[in-house]
């Protein structure tokens, strides 16, 4: 990808400018003869890395929101292809339809048989439409319930990847009981007697995220966010103006670094220096390592212990260590 086609966020402008210069210089170098600008190029590349590292080391909550939504950030399908062997997608809620905003199936995760599912946002216009930008309708949550039923039946652990702006607000979704579908999915997570590990890999948008994140362990990537309402929507309600979204992002404490102190997430998975999208393979591996570790620890618990640990985890939130 060249600097012209790569997706840069606003705060990455200086990086974009520098990378464009590097490309220009490389082109000049090609015509001027091999190695003509090697020294300059190396220095510039070094400078870009520094800039990127610095920028990503001190992202504010609104910048993190942008990173969490970055179109090149690894999505569910990337995690599946990087981490799950013999993935067999299972489709449909057996009631009405198949909703591709939530994708799930069976597979092997580092040798372990698992049920895996997650929100998928899509990566280009065609797939974004197919997956409805990761905004699930009731059928998505009912498929999740069905897959969790199967996990229970066959004693399979459940791994989820959370990445949604929220459940889809549409007429059909309401008509078919969006609220009920989300509630039942959350309930099913909480009644599983097999281990469940959720990782917020992008956006954890409200109830539509929680529906597959009410897990024994909730992990979050370093620049992911988890929020009761999107900063934009919150801003339009409380400030009557979407433009206050950055302020809202700040006030709602939606970053991994805020949430770990509240006990709302259990573990932060560090991202590559320029964010998960700068080195997807490394990010995917880091997520895999963390999920494996958490799952293995949970295997030590009995089915009853699994239930109790999950209940204790959620009941404890807000009861201590706050304020």
């Amino acid at each position, binding site marked *: 990808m060249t600097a012209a086609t790569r997706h840069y966020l606003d705060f990455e402008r200086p990086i974009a400018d520098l990378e464009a210069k590097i490309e220009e210089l490389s082109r000049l170098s090609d015509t001027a003869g091999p190695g003509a600008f090697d020294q300059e190029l190396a220095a510039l590349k070094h400078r870009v890395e520094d800039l990127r590292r610095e920028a990503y080391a001190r992202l504010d909550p609104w910048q993190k929101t942008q990173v969490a939504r970055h179109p090149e950030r690894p999505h569910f399908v990337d995690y599946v292809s990087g981490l799950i062997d013999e993935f067999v997608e299972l489709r449909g809620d057996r009631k009405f339809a198949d909703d591709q905003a939530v994708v799930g199936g069976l597979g092997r995760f580092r040798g372990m048989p698992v049920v895996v599912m997650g929100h998928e946002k899509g990566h280009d216009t065609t797939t974004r439409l197919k997956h409805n930008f990761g905004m699930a309708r009731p059928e998505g949550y009912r498929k999740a319930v069905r897959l969790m039923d199967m996990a229970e039946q066959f004693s399979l652990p459940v791994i989820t990847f959370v990445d949604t702006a929220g459940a889809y607000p549409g007429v059909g979704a309401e008509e078919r009981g969006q609220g009920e579908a989300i*509630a039942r999915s*959350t309930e099913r997570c909480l009644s599983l007697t097999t281990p469940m590990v959720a990782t917020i890999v992008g956006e954890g948008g*409200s109830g539509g995220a929680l529906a597959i994140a009410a897990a024994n362990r909730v992990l979050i990537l370093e620049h992911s966010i988890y929020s009761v309402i999107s900063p934009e929507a919150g801003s339009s309600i409380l400030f009557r103006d979407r433009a206050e979204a950055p302020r809202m992002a700040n006030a*709602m404490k939606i970053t991994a670094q805020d*949430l770990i102190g509240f006990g*709302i997430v259990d573990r932060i998975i560090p991202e590559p220096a320029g964010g998960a999208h700068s080195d997807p393979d490394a990010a995917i591996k880091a997520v895999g390592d963390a999920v494996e570790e958490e799952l293995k620890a949970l295997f030590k618990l009995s089915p009853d212990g699994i239930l109790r640990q999950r209940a204790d985890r959620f009941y404890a939130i807000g009861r201590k260590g706050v304020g």
Partner: protein
Amino acid sequence: MRTMADARDETPKDKPARPARGAGWLAKIAPGVRNLVNRRAETPDNLWIKCPDTGEMIYRPDLESALWVTPAGRHMRIAPPLRFKYTFDGGAYEALPVPSVVEDPLKFADQKPYPERLAAARKATGEPDAVALAFGGIRDVPAVVMVQDFAFMGGSLGMAAGETFVAGARAALERQVPYVAFCAAGGARMQEGAFSLMQMARTTLAIQELRRARLPYVVVLTDPTTGGVTASYAMLGDIHLAEPGALIGFAGPRVIEQTIRETLPPGFQRSEYLVEKGMVDRIVERSELNAVLGSILATLMLGRKTRAA
């Protein structure tokens, strides 16, 4: 979770009507005129209440004896004390304590600091937060009842409401009695961020405790119930009743209209629509709630007793 702004304003409280202050001679000869003049028709201090549907002026004592249901059938929003009074036999009940929680965990401020909003809501409602609990008999079936007050910051589900919901379920478990939840909320309390989101899971856990104990959990949906409340305990009842005409949905109508860029049909997301779509068992008039709830709870508890025997 984004619908508080959709709410209509009418928030009658269980307070005696006081004569209008400062209205002078006009109020004495024509009390309704003052309402027309300064548009405070829905506030509790007035002797005349404007019907939100027809605009007709309703004499407050008449409205009170009709359980705050207008002649047009609108079930107006009522505060927890009135709800308890109408729900329990003979209006007799024991108020249960609500747990205290950490306040303002995020140190949140929008245009106003959150503690100021809380203080204002407390002053306006006389309640500590959006959810109240009571214990009493419903057609002689002892039950714990939870009531959510839309007048308190849109009934929003924060840590206090969530913890109170859990405490209500525990009180029902302790007494081995059914749990009835009157829901009314714009959704989660944004000022508590992800802490409010977590209440969706925490209240669900409490419902699971009731299920394991085979104690009935009955939901009564009242106007309005939307957002995170609809996506958790409001839709997890063994039985879902609804008052007539209540707005019930996940996304608020304004959010949906913005998404689809169309005007929604009349009746969309109202109680009657939810019955038709299979999400609500039955619409029950306010005056019938005590009888219907009593009957349902008695049947379920009889079945439970047979099993235990």
